C-alpha cells in the first residue's frame, strides 16, 4: 500500500525557496552590518561625502558665474559698451589658468633644501593643488597646463610659492599624514621651511605655440 507523504513536493519546494531567499537576505544584511560597523569604511565614505559636498558648492558657484556671464553677454549684444568688459573678464579667467599674466595674492613659500625625486615634486605640487592653491611656481617657473617637473630639471633647494589661503595651505601641507609627512616617512627627514605671506607675486610665462590642437566647434 502506498503511504501518503507528510508534505507534497510542491510544498517542500516553496519552503525551500523561501528559506533560500531568507538566507540570501541574511547574508546581505551581515555584509552591510559588517561594513557599517567598520569605522574605516564609514570614515572613507564620510571623507568622500565631505569632499563631494565642497566640490558641489564650488560647482554651484561656477554655474552661477557662467549663468551670469551668459546674461552679461546677452546684455552686451544689446549694449555695445559692456561687451569689452565681458571679454576682458573672460580673458582674465583664462590668463590666470594659463599663467600668461603675473599674479599676486596671499599664500605660502615652501623651501625644501634636500633633493627630491621628480615623483616627489609631482606629489608636492599635486597636494598643493588639492588643498586649494590657485596659482603655483617652483624655482621661479610658473606651473601651467604645460609645465612638467620632468622636463625642467629642477634642483635643490626647491622654492615653491603657492597662492591661496595661507593658514589652510600651510597646515594642510605640514599636518600629520600630509604630503611632507608622507615623503619624510619614505625618504627620511627633510630640511624645510613653510612661511605664510599676505602678498606674494608669481611670474608670467608665455603661451606655447600650439601645433596640433584645434577647437571643436559645437
Amino acid at each position, binding site marked *: 500500500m502506498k503511504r501518503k507523504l507528510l508534505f507534497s513536493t510542491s510544498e*517542500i519546494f516553496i519552503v525551500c525557496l523561501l528559506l533560500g531567499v531568507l538566507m540570501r537576505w541574511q547574508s546581505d544584511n551581515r555584509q552591510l552590518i559588517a561594513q557599517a560597523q567598520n569605522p574605516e569604511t564609514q570614515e572613507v565614505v564620510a571623507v568622500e561625502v565631505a569632499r563631494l559636498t565642497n566640490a558641489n558648492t564650488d560647482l554651484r558657484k561656477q554655474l552661477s558665474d557662467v549663468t551670469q556671464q551668459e546674461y552679461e553677454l546677452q546684455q552686451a549684444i544689446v549694449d555695445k559698451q559692456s561687451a569689452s568688459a565681458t571679454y576682458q573678464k573672460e580673458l582674465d579667467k583664462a590668463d590666470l589658468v594659463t599663467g600668461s599674466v603675473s599674479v599676486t595674492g596671499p599664500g605660502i613659500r615652501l623651501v625644501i633644501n634636500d633633493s627630491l625625486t621628480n615623483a616627489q615634486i609631482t606629489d608636492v605640487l599635486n597636494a598643493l593643488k588639492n588643498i586649494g592653491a590657485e596659482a603655483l611656481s617652483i624655482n621661479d617657473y610658473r606651473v601651467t597646463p604645460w609645465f612638467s617637473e620632468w622636463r625642467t630639471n629642477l634642483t635643490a633647494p626647491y622654492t615653491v610659492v603657492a597662492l591661496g589661503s595661507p593658514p589652510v595651505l600651510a597646515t594642510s601641507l605640514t599636518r600629520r599624514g600630509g604630503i611632507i609627512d608622507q615623503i619624510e616617512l619614505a625618504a627620511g627627514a627633510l630640511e624645510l621651511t613653510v612661511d605664510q605671506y599676505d602678498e606674494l607675486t608669481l611670474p608670467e610665462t608665455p603661451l606655447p605655440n*600650439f601645433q596640433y590642437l584645434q577647437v571643436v566647434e559645437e
Partner: protein
Amino acid sequence: MRILPYITLVSISVAGGVLVSSQWQVRVTRVVNPVQPYTSLTDTLDALTDEQQRLKDEIAAATASVKRRKATLSTSLREIDRTLVSSSAEASTAAGFTKVAGPGVVAVLDDSPDGILSEQAITHAADLRDIISLLRAIGAEAISVNGERVITTTAVDCIVNTILVNDTRLSNPYEIRAIGDAETLARALNDPAVLSDLHERVIQNGVRFSVTTSTRTEIPAYTGRLPGDHVTLVR
C-alpha cells in the same frame, strides 16, 4: 517507507534554526539600527555624485550658450576691440575652456584582471600623475582622464580605492587622452625606462596598460571650479 521527506524536513528545520540563531547573534546591544547611519551616508554619497554630474551638465550647457552668444557678439559688433575678442578666444582654448581635437594617443590603464589583488596589481593615482607629468614633458597640448580635462589646478588624488580628478570620482579603466605628436607621445609612454615602475608592474603583476595612436582624438572642455578667490592679475 520512504524517508526522503523526513530527511528534507529535518534539513529545513536545522537550516531554519541556524538562520534564526545567526540573526540573533548579529543583534547589537547599544545601537538600535547600526546600518541606518551607514546607508544614509552612502545614499548621500550617491545623491552628491548625481548632483555633481547634473551641475557639470548644466555648466556645460551654459558654457555652450555663452560660446554661441560670443560668436554672435564678435561677428555682429564691429565696434568691439577685435584684438580683445581674439585674445580671449585664444586664451580660453589654451586654458582648457573649449573642446579640442587633434592627433594624439589614447592610453588605457587598468587593474590586473586576475589573481590576488595586491597593492602592486592595482592602478594608483600616482600612476596617473606620472603619466600626466610625462605627457606634459614631451609636449602634449591637451590631456584628459576619463573625460576630465586636465588644467593647471587639476589635482589627481585618491581616497582609499577611489581616484578623484578635478574632485570627480572616476572608476577604472582609466582612459588618458592626449593631443600632440602621436608617435612621440606613444614612444615615451611605451618606453619601459621612462615609466619604469608602471611597466614593471605590467610584467610582474598583470597591471594593464595599452597605448594606441590616433589621427584625431577629442578632449572635452573643463567644467569644474575655477580659481580666482585669492589672486589678482598684474597686467
